[in-house]
C-alpha cells in the first residue's frame, strides 16, 4: 500500500501539531493509517462521502488520538484507490481545540475533491513512507516530513 499526501495536508498537520494537545498528530496518523492495511483503514469508523465504494471511495475517517483517550482525536479526509492500492490523505482536523471543527461544509468537501483532482492531474502528490525511526518521510528524498 502506498500513501500519498498533498502539500496542503502536510501544512495542516504541521499547524495542528504545534498545539501541545495535538503534538501526537503524526503518531496518530502512523497508528491509524501507516500501520494498517486498506481494509482496516476502510472498516474502522470510516464513512463514505462519495465515489464508488468498491473502486475509489472518498472517505472521512475518525482517528482516536494516541495520548488523550477517546475524548480527543482527529477527523481525516482521504481517498482510497483499490486497484492501485493507493491511499491519498487530503485533510485533517482535530475534534477538539483551536483548530477543531464539526463536519466540513459541502463547499469545503467539493474543494477537497477539486484539490485531489488537481494533484492527481499534475502529479503533485507526495509519496510517503515510514523510516526506521518510526517517522513519516518523503519516499523519494527520505526527508522527514514533520
Amino acid at each position, binding site marked *: 500500500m502506498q500513501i500519498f499526501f498533498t502539500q496542503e495536508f502536510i501544512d495542516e498537520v504541521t499547524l495542528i501539531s504545534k498545539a501541545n494537545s495535538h503534538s501526537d498528530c503524526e503518531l496518530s496518523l502512523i497508528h491509524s493509517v501507516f500501520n494498517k492495511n486498506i481494509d482496516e483503514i476502510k472498516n474502522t*469508523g470510516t464513512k463514505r462521502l*462519495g*465515489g464508488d465504494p468498491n473502486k475509489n471511495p472518498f472517505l472521512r475517517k*475518525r482517528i482516536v488520538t494516541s495520548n488523550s483517550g477517546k475524548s480527543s482525536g482527529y477527523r481525516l479526509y482521504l481517498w482510497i484507490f483499490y486497484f492501485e492500492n493507493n491511499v491519498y490523505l487530503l485533510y485533517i482536523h482535530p475534534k477538539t481545540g483551536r483548530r477543531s471543527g464539526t463536519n466540513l461544509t*459541502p463547499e469545503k468537501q467539493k474543494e477537497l475533491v477539486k484539490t485531489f483532482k488537481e494533484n492527481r492531474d499534475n502529479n503533485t502528490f507526495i509519496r510517503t513512507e515510514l523510516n526506521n525511526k518510526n517517522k513519516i518521510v518523503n519516499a523519494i528524498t527520505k526527508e522527514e516530513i514533520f
Partner: protein
Amino acid sequence: MESSVLTLGKQICEVITHDKIITPKISEQERVNRLLDAINSTRTKINKMSSNVSKLDELFTKLSWLELANSEEEILIKKVIAQAKKYHTNSLKNYILLKNTLFKDGICKIEIDDYKNALDDFEDTVLEIEQIFFVLRKDDEFNSLLNSI
C-alpha cells in the same frame, strides 16, 4: 393497685433498664456494600448506554457505504435520522442529569465522560449521514466532480 412514688419509680427504672437497644438491621458494612453495589450497577448501566450509542453510531456509519435505491428508502432514512436526533436529545438530558448528580459527587466520572463522548460522536455521525444523503449526493457539482475522477 398500690401506687406510690417508690413503686412507680421502680417500675420506671425497670422499664428503662430492661429496654433493649435495637441493633440496626443493616450494619455499617452492609450499608457500604449496598452503596457499592448500587454504584457498580449504575456503572454497568451507563456503560451499556454508551455501548448502545456506539452501536447506533456504527450502524449509521455502515449506511454511508450504501446508496438510497428509491423514494421508499429515502423516506425511511429521513425517519430514522429524525428518530436518532430525538434519541440524542433525550440521551443528552440523561447525561446532564448524571453530570449534575453522580458526576458532581465523583461517582462513575469516567463512565459519564465516555457516555458524553459517545453521544458527541453519534450526533456528529447522524448530522454527517444527513448531509451525505440529502445534500452532498444530491449536489450536481459534487457528483460531476466525482465522475471526473
